[in-house]
């Protein structure tokens, strides 16, 4: 058990000739909530997606729970991990998307059980019991037989959180979880996330909800143009920004 859950050192990533991440350093301690803020296109989502290897970073070191993401160090060589090892690693990291991405052909209950049953090999009955427990936790115990299209955005996002939690992850990644929601539905999702943070879950949240960041986060990172411009205690970073860029950004979003 290492104290540091996520450790990024000089991580870079480019698409074509666009440099999205230009040497990012980030440390997330076990049990802490970290918020990534910044303008769109700043590389926040890309960094998040590198952490569970949905994207491959180019250079730099990226460790989750003390292990290199996607590679194994033997001697002086990095060996790319086999597909099933990467799948195994991903199954220990929960991810919540901006557009929910619930499986549209499955009911709410099946959305939550499919990962447990097919990836972790949990039996049907225990999986269902666990799913019902999680639905109760996110306040949707009466929706288990609904299809995603029959739910509001806020309800879908809460199901998506339950689906990720069903895998009993050691780390949860949130990619702008409230950006696609109507303003009056944002609160219900943030409430679930706040409860989760209070239960001691390690979380990395890409968000534009500055109120949530200030209240819940243990640390805040401000990314701009692929570089971490400022980071630290949320009260400090959000109320007394040092750099001009962050001052500009905050004046636009607040």
């Amino acid at each position, binding site marked *: 058990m290492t104290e540091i859950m996520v450790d990024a050192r000089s991580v870079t990533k480019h698409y074509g000739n666009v440099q999205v991440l230009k040497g990012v350093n980030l440390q997330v301690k076990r049990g802490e909530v970290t918020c990534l803020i910044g303008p769109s296109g700043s590389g926040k989502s890309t960094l998040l997606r590198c952490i569970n290897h949905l994207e491959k970073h180019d250079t730099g070191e990226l460790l989750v729970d003390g292990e290199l993401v996607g590679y194994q160090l033997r001697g002086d060589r990095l060996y790319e991990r086999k597909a099933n090892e990467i799948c195994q690693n991903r*199954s220990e990291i929960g991810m919540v998307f901006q557009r929910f991405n619930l499986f549209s052909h499955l*009911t709410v209950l099946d959305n939550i059980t499919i990962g447990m049953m097919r990836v972790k090999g949990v039996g049907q009955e225990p999986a269902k019991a666990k799913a019902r427990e999680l639905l109760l936790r996110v306040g949707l115990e009466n929706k288990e037989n609904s299809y*995603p299209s029959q739910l509001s955005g806020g309800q879908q996002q809460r199901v*998506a959180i339950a689906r990720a939690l069903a895998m009993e992850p050691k780390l949860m990644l949130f990619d702008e979880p409230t950006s696609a929601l109507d303003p009056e539905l944002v609160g219900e999702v943030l409430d679930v996330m706040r409860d989760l943070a209070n239960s001691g879950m390690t979380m990395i949240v890409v968000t534009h909800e500055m109120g949530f960041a200030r209240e819940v986060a243990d640390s805040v990172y401000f990314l701009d143009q692929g570089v971490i411009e400022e980071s630290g205690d949320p009260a400090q970073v959000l109320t007394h920004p040092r750099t001009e860029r962050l001052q500009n950004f905050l004046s636009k979003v607040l």
Partner: protein
Amino acid sequence: MSGDTTYRVVPVRHYGRWVAAVIIAVLVAMGVHTIFSKVPTGQFACSTLNGVRSCHSVLEWRFGWDVVFQYFTSSLMLKGLVITLELTVLAMVIGIVLGVGIAIMRLSPNRLLSMPAWTYTWFFRGTPVYVQLLFWFNFAALYKVITFGVPFANVHFFTFDSLSITAFVAAVIGLGLNEAAYMSEIARAGLISVDEGQVEAATALGMTRAQTLRLVILPQAMRVVLPPTGNEIISMLKTTSLAAAISVIELTGAAQNIYASNYKVVDLLICASMWYIAMTTVLSIGQYYLERHFGRGALRSQPLTPIERLRADLKGITGKLHTSRPAVSR
């Protein structure tokens, strides 16, 4: 327009529609009449009753319904029907399995996989299926024997004589390979219709590529793939009649054999057509319920089945009888 006055609403009268409806009704009545009319054969039947001899013109069905129903369940036609169904099922199985494989190859980022898939579709869509059937039937002219073994080494697993490709086998191969080209495009459309986010969500849960394909992509692609696939099956059922050209005695071939000896050409073509329509009707009903099954989750509420809708309509009609005329209050 104030107060609680109630006005009667007078709907627009569509006089043009009424005229059109009358004209169509008359045409339909004429059509039905002529289909079920009798015409003189030119022969006369005479009989003597109480010493009086009387003759009358002999009539027969214009469409030969007696002949149609005489042969409808004859053993020759039923044998042809079975062959038609066998051809359809076997060719569609080859078409769907091969087609899905080609579609997956076509979507591969590896050009060594995607190019052959593209070429296959290009070739088989570009040549007439009739020509392809003749080609496979005459395959023995190209290769006398086909041997499976290890190339460049003198190892043979098994060998077979091309002349053993019967007309039926040639028809199954020809129809199946041609169908695979069309099915691959349908399957490809289905695969690319699934939202990228669904794949990401499955990947993030830790599913392997195969699991993602089987548990997430294919079930969702089914909704897009089913209607055109149903179309293909129905189309295939009728295209099998081309096999008659390479001497397979399927439904059309059976009808041809019968009218070659009794000259009742139109009657037997109607007889075969009725079997085709009966089978496509059954397939259409099956397709409807299959689409309903795979459409769940795509719409907020499932549409009613025709039977449920009929029931609701009947309820609506009886309900209306008990309510007063519609009126709006201003």
